[in-house]
């Protein structure tokens, strides 16, 4: 995933919050959740769109014309309205930050938390469902799950829930064992050696 700049997210959040406020009044939050996925898909499949949005040599009207052609009928009119506002204020360069912030704010409103699970082999669906159910019960929120296979972990699971990382992988245990052997065994042997002298 490409990470957006702090500035982009800061500016984008202002417009994202405005869109959410408008959608709340018109009871259109559900449509926004779909729009976010649409915009994320468009940005990931067409990275040229972000480049176009950041280009200084293309006029804002030309940029919006491309967006309008691509997105009309695929996103809610309120979303188009905010994108037009961003264009007028020459803020379309922060499109990625806007989409990122909108996703975050909607998840927060909907009580959704991002959960990333890494394992040495692919987990079957029943295991994933059990993990999701456990996290939902523990946090009281709705987990949005992403699974990755990382063979270097050797076994076990590494689960990241928002900012918290829980590492119960074999690789982590081996690293702990190594650290313990290097530090504590070394100290004990030195103490014994000193006692012998």
């Amino acid at each position, binding site marked *: *995933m490409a*990470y*957006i*700049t*702090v500035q982009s*997210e*800061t500016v984008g959040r202002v417009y994202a919050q405005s869109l959410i406020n408008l959608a709340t009044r018109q009871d259109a939050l559900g449509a926004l959740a779909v729009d976010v996925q649409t915009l994320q898909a468009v940005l990931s499949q067409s990275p040229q769109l972000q480049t176009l949005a950041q280009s200084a040599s293309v006029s804002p009207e030309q940029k919006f014309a491309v967006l309008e052609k691509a997105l009309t009928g695929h996103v809610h009119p309120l979303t188009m309205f905010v994108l037009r506002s961003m264009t007028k204020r020459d803020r379309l360069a922060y499109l990625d930050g806007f989409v990122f912030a909108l996703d975050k704010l909607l998840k927060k409103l909907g009580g959704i938390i991002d959960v990333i699970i890494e394992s040495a082999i692919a987990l079957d669906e029943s295991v994933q469902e059990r993990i999701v159910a456990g996290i939902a019960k523990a946090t009281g929120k709705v987990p949005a799950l992403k699974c990755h296979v990382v063979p270097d972990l050797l076994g076990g699971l590494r689960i*990241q829930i*928002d*900012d*918290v*990382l*829980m*590492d*119960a992988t074999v690789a*982590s*245990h081996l690293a*702990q*064992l190594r650290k*313990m*052997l290097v530090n*504590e*065994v070394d*100290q*004990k*042997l*030195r103490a*014994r*050696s000193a006692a*012998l*002298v």
Partner: protein
Amino acid sequence: MKIKVDEITSVIEQEIAGFQNRMDVAQVGRVIEVGDGIARIYGLRGAMAGEMLEFPNGVFGQVFNLEEETVGAVIMNHYLSIKEGDLVKCTGELLSVPVGDALLGRVVDPLGQPLDGGPAIQTTDRRKVDVIAPGIADRQPVKQPLQTGVKAIDAMIPIGRGQRELIIGDRKTGKTAIALDAIINQKKYWGTPDAVICIYVAIGQKESTVAGVVDTLRQNGAMDYTIVVTASASDPAPLQYIAPYAGCAMGEHFMAQGKHVLCVYDDLTKQAQAYRQLSLLLRRPPGREAYPGDVFYLHSRLLERACKLSDENGGGSLTALPVIETQEGEVSAYIPTNVISITDGQIYLEPDLFFSGIRPAINVGISVSRVGGSAQVKAMKNKKVAASLRLDLASYRELEAFAQLGTDVDAGTRRKLDRGARMVKLLTQLQYEPMDTIDQIMVIYAGAQGMLDKVPVADVLTWEKQFLEFTRTSAVKLREDLNTKKDLTPEIEAALVEAISRFNATSALVAK
């Protein structure tokens, strides 16, 4: 006796059998920007100010800025291995350094890693780098002298144990030389109850310069009780920023044990510049001269940790000798005025004095020690020794202009000029040759009482050398009495006058 292989195996097997694996839970974030020694991390909502962060590949950083969605961190080691998207973990700990006797004689970086090619530092004790200074109730007034071995300082700008005395001057005026003399002079106290452990913190200096300092200390036998902490000019700015705090933490370990410590910070100007660099990169608002608004606090919280602890707390002390480099003698610049207002006095070095041959180039007229006589042995603060010296020099400075004009002066003025010229010469000293307190008292007494008036100015130092040699063979009891009583009693004074007169009678340097 060596440990046997099966003993090693049994220890390892024991540890493995007792090993209990646990799930590692940590707060994490992702790097979104990295460069120039700083990183911005997205996430880490639970990060605390000053908390240590763990980056991949064994790199460590420290939280500097806590913002709404991101954390700004400074990276302590090399940041080139860090890239966007790397996972960063909170450690839950503040920055600490190894402390203890294992550091004596070693050259280390601000994280406690050895730089002298020697073995790893073996110590289990660690101490936090940034701590709050001892409170008022934990201290006592500074009253025990710290002898630097420099005549001009010990006589007129005396430093006490627990004091902060600033060494300030332009480049190449001998600031480091004074600090090194003070360190070398502690050799005679090593192994006695008055022993002083020395810590020399080199900040932003050339590595060749630091190598020269270490070599000088080693040649003079001073490395046995000295720790050298260095963050050179090629080291990242975060290391230059924390170097003085790391050195102070190492010193506080010994102070807490009731011992005496001398910390030299050479120099704090470069620490302020490194801090400015970090603050600007992390977009903190710049103030005067582009320094951040808390640059005063940067130095005040360091120097406040120098103190003399009360007897209930062990009676240890930490004396600080911060060094500040001025530009073209400008002592009213921002950083110099900040540090002058924090310290308990300053030793001001002037290039004009240096190039006119007065070395150490101390301007005794404007140098001051706010502790003063409380930090002097009784014999030195006797009015016939240091007090008289100060008056003679003050009169000499007033009348110096007449001497340069070559005008005719009356006998009294001529006497003052001659006396002053001899006293100025008497206060000069060779580098790395600190002088014992007893020797200082005897020669300054001789000069202040006019017993050098018949010695040509150019021969004053030769007279001093020969006289001191004379006392080591022909006035042994005098030296012993002075060393024991540390006071100029009438009997000791009489013996001193007799010794000087006896020497002058036979010396070829004294005009008959």
